[in-house]
């Protein structure tokens, strides 16, 4: 599945959430990640994040679709995401 993840967490927990997300998803923008995951990987990511955040203060939203083809994206300004898979 294709996942877009957006987080809004307290400053002191930001690095932890960032590092967890980096393991599974591509960084697209400050506090936004996206990438393709299997269901198991998605579940692992969510579990890891659940133990990291404070459920009373932090908020993480994920959007999932079957494949990236199902989403049209427009970027204005600088494209911050990575350079793709030819490095």
């Amino acid at each position, binding site marked *: 599945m294709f996942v877009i993840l957006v987080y809004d967490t307290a400053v002191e927990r930001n690095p932890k959430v960032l590092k967890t997300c980096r*393991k599974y998803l591509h*960084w697209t923008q400050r506090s936004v990640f996206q990438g393709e995951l299997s269901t198991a990987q998605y579940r692992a990511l969510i579990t890891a994040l659940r133990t990291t955040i404070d459920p009373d203060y932090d908020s993480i939203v994920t959007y999932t679709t079957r494949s990236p083809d199902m989403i049209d994206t427009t970027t204005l300004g600088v494209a911050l995401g*990575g350079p793709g898979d030819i490095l």
Partner: protein
Amino acid sequence: MPAAGRTYWLTEPCRIRREDNSIRVERPDGSPVRIPITDIRDLIAFDHVDVNTSAMSMLSRNGVTLHILDHYGNHAGHFSPAESVASAAVIRRQVEITADPDRRTAIGRALVLAAAENLRWALDTDLLDPALQSLRTDLPDCKDDDAIMGQEGNFRRTAWAVLDTQLPPWLRLNGRTRRPPTNAGNAFISYLNALVYARVLTALRSTPLHPAIGFLHSDTDRRRNTLALDLAEPFKPLFAERLLKRTAHQRALKPTDFETDVGRASLSTNGRKKIAALVREELSTTVHHRTLKRKVSYEELIHLEALKLVRLCLEDTPYKPFHPWW
């Protein structure tokens, strides 16, 4: 093949490091690129890459293979994870089949014939039909690997001569040369062959088959993984010759994409990038598979080919080498 995951092509000098239990690729220019470890199926290094043990153990734990190509595009080696899908039953059968000369040469002949037919298909010309016909009549008489490989060599020479007629003068092979390739066309073919070999090896690593126990190439062949060499044969025309023809027609490559010296040629950094993009696109091309009744990518075709061999070992299903049906 892992369900998710992509191949990453490292076309520039870089350093692979471990960071936060994931991978960070540092390049001489620009900021580091962070790749989620779960998104990597394998890495192909075209250029100088620094990697340390902690990054390698990270790669190993996540089942990532790192392929290394040398300056001339030969497969210089690979780092692959500790075997996790090993199966004694499959390997034992694989050894039995390859040890039986009759079965071994039968499969070898099938592979050579498939490679030749695929080449005819890729070049799409009837100039090759006489050569193919004589290969068909001569092959059944070949009793050992050397004879089969000799037939293959004869056919290939004819095929490359035919291919030359379809290429612009600067990209012509004028006889196949390797180690190092002497001209642009040969450099291209060498590069693509090494890439196909790397793809086949990655596919084989996801099956319990042992990549060094092959059917066609002799076991002492530069101590390479002979099964991967065997399986690469029918796929080479699909990628190497066909892409060379296509790039020539589309004028996608220029003489400046090659570094030509007296008696040797290799791809320039820019050329490598172009070819990486080309191959990546080609690998993700999909065709409709008639038995599976769904679309499969060329990449997956290689994997399916490896699975056919597993089926040969476990269930004695006759092995029919890959042939493009579209």
